[in-house]
Every structure is written in C-alpha cells, then in structure tokens.
C-alpha cells in the first residue's frame, strides 16, 4: 500500500534575482575577495569580469538558495584557475599592490594599503584551501556554513582549514612583529 509521504519539502521562494541586481549588490565584494584570493591587483578587473560572466551564464541554474555561497564558489574557481596559470606563477613573486592615490589624501590610500599588503603577503603563504577558508570567513564574513558550501567541503573540514589558516597567519604576523 502506497504511503502518502506528504508534500515534498521545498526551500522557501527566493526573491527574484536579476544579474543587474547581483552586480549591484555583490560585484564589489567579489572584486575584493579576488584580491584576497591572490589575484594580482593589475588583473583583478579582468578576473572579476570573468567571474561575473560565469555568474551570468550560470544564473539560470541557480536554485535560489545560498546566493553568497554560490557566488563565492564561482569566485574561488576562477581565482584558482588564475593562480594556476603559468604567467601568474612566474610573476606573482614580484607582484605589488598598486600605488594608492595618496596625493588625494583618500582615507583608504592613507592607511589601508600597507596593512593590506602585509596581510596579502601572509595569505600568500597559505595553501589554496586554507586561504579560501580564511578569506571567505575573516574578510568576506561569510558564515562557516556558507564557507563550507562555497568551498564544497563538509562543515568540519571548513572549520579545520579555517583554524589552521588562522594559526598560520597569526604566526606570520607574530614573526614579522618581532
């Protein structure tokens, strides 16, 4: 005898998403994440465009849940491909953050560039998995669950990678401080 299991559980309806809306709300932060993930400043515009093109292409497949995880997952893949490219490997050692427009006394240029550079050098010492967990959690401030979904790993794994990354980055900062 067939048992009626009741209606299938479905996710609550997601708000309609347009690519323009995604661009408006998230593009800036995807750009920032790419810097944290090791994309050179000189290339970040191009890579961000690539991310957004992928987002546009795959938007019909999106199931309407966990948008940030989905977006950052695309970001991670594109950044990973970028870092693997031979050209970047050769040049990445000498990469520097672009000169800030300090002449205009912008607040960001005044005190963030040096600090950002310091952090990016520390992140360069992490492997890709730890770096992704650290950047997504500590800079982009995704939840741990969102981080795990973006990376595509179990929650415990994301947690472990994050902890390992934190310890390593703290150690780097401590060494530089001393």
């Amino acid at each position, binding site marked *: 005898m067939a048992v009626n299991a009741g209606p299938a559980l479905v996710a609550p309806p*997601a708000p309609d998403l347009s690519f323009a809306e995604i661009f408006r709300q998230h593009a800036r932060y995807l750009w920032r994440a790419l810097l944290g993930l090791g994309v050179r400043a000189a290339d970040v515009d191009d890579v961000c465009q690539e991310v957004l093109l992928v987002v546009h292409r795959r938007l019909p497949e999106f199931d309407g849940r966990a948008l940030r995880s989905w977006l950052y997952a695309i970001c991670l893949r594109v950044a990973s491909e970028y870092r693997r490219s031979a050209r970047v490997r050769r040049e990445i050692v000498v990469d520097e953050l672009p000169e800030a427009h300090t002449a205009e006394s912008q607040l960001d240029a005044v005190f963030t560039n040096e600090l950002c550079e310091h952090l990016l050098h520390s992140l360069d010492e992490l492997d890709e998995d730890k770096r992704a967990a650290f950047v997504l959690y500590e800079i982009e401030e995704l939840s741990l669950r969102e981080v795990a979904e973006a990376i595509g790993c179990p929650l415990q794994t994301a947690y472990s990678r994050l902890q390992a990354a934190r310890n390593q980055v703290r150690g780097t900062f401590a060494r530089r401080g001393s």
Partner: protein
Amino acid sequence: MIKEPKRLIESDSGPLAESLAASQLRVPSDTRMAALAARLASAGVLVGDAAHAPALREPPRVSALSQLPAKSLESSLKLALGAVALSVVALGGAVYWRYGVPRAATSVVLAQNAANASANAGTPASDFEPPLAARSTPAIGDVQAAPSVPRADAPSATAVAPAPEATPEEAPPPAGGDSGETRPNAPATVGTNSVAGAAPRPRAAEPEAKRAVTSATTPRSDAASSGERLPLPANTVIDSEVEMLKKARNALSVDPVQAYALTERCRAQYPSGAFAQERDFIAISSLVRLGRRDEARGRASLFRTRYRNSAYLPQLTRMLGEE
C-alpha cells in the same frame, strides 16, 4: 555541533585585526565599477536600466515559482512596469532638462559626465576606494536638487549607468564639504543612480591638508554634538580629518573608547568633513565593540537613512547581527 569562532577582526587586536579591517575597506571605486559595468555591457550581459526593465540578454529570473505557468504573466507584468518606470524617468528628465534642474536619474552616457567633469574637475578619485566611496544616492525618480560634480577621470566609454546625483540635503559642497554630495557613489548600480562619473570627492581640496598630529585639546562632546567649534589654545596643532580618522580606525580594535572619542572629536572639528561616512561607520563600530548596541543601532538607522546606497551597509548589518 560546531560553534562559529569569533572573527579575528573582533577577537584579535593589533596589526592582524587592523590588516583585516583595512582589507575589508578595500573595495573598488565607483569609477572602477562603472568601467566593469561598461565591459559587461559590451559583452552583452548588462544593459542600462536593467534594474527596471528586463535586459534583452538577461538570463531568466531565478525564482522558486519559475516552474509555474504564471511566470509568463509575471514577466509581462514586469515588462510593463519597467516600461512605465522608464517613461516616468524620461519624463522627469525632460522636465528637469527643460528647466535647467539637474537631470533625474536616467541612462546617461558617462562620456557626457566626463566632459562635464573636465569643466568642473575636482580631485581625481582613487581606484581603490573604501566603502567610504559609497554615497547615499536617491532612488530613481527622486527629485535632484543639486548637480552632481562629475569626476575628472570618469571613463569616456559608453555608460550603462546614469550619473549619480546628490540628494537635496547632500548638495555638492565647496571644498571639504559634507560627505555624500560629491563622493562617488555606492556599488555601481546599473540603471540607477550610484555610479562612477559622479561627484568627485574634494579630497585634495580639504582645507586641512595633513598637518602635524598632536592636538592639545579635545572639544567637549556637547559642543561636538552642536557642531560648535571650541576655541583652542594658540599653539594647538589640529589633526587633519584624515589623520584623526586614521587614529580612530587604528584604535578600533584595541581601544574602542578612544576610537569613539576620536570620531566625536572629528565630528566637532569637521562637521561637514569629506569623510563623514567613514567617521560615522567607525563610530558605530566603536559602539558595538563597547557593547552599546542600542546606541549603535540608533546610529546605524541614521546612517542608513543618510547613506542609502553605502557599501558599508552589508557590513553594518552583519556587525549588528541583524542578518
């Protein structure tokens, strides 16, 4: 059950927390976002005013209701609404054009703004603008009482977004004017107001070019709240607004009391400063760190009203645990 660890920016102090805070501030400028939008438009994935009318090359809207037959009706309705919205905007733009009032937000080529910018060149903006670059912008159709001051370095590529306009209460300032009126606006919202090419920040025009750091006195908070500037001893060296906020930012993770005091001092000395948005954000961050969450929420509410399209808003929401 894994408990989410406290973020390092909150739990740590010193260079690491500061570096994380600095990295969070490192978002692209409106100019850069507009250029990116233009590139996406060239690639055919982003069309001007896409927010209010379906782009021809827009992928289907993602919705849990997408399987239902009503989708076609929904799309038609939205198309009609979009057309109406465009008509209203165009009409408003025509009226304003006719009477010399700054145009309402419509699809305007950035090249036009760039040409205007050359005539009214302010300070070229950095490509790396923190969320401080996000300025409150009116929604489409809002009456624009003050002209935007376009940027000298606005790209000449065909725009996909309109020039941002200042809200009536954020009229473009003279040098060192209040935040928002001449800043480039918040995330390059295609089809709406906040896009690069708009108001430049009169940063170089800060009357307070960087001077020595120490200041002998701190204005009283009551005077600060009224905007009154207290007389200072003759030998007092006044921090520039930038220096003051730099100190406040650096103090945030180690001494939020000091950070908050600095923002109040900054408010007193530079009530119409060019970095008011950053100042207010740091003040709210300080209050959160001090456990004064009700006060922080009140300030955040004012912040949201004043800087409606600020790129700080998501961070503000997360900081207050409102997600």
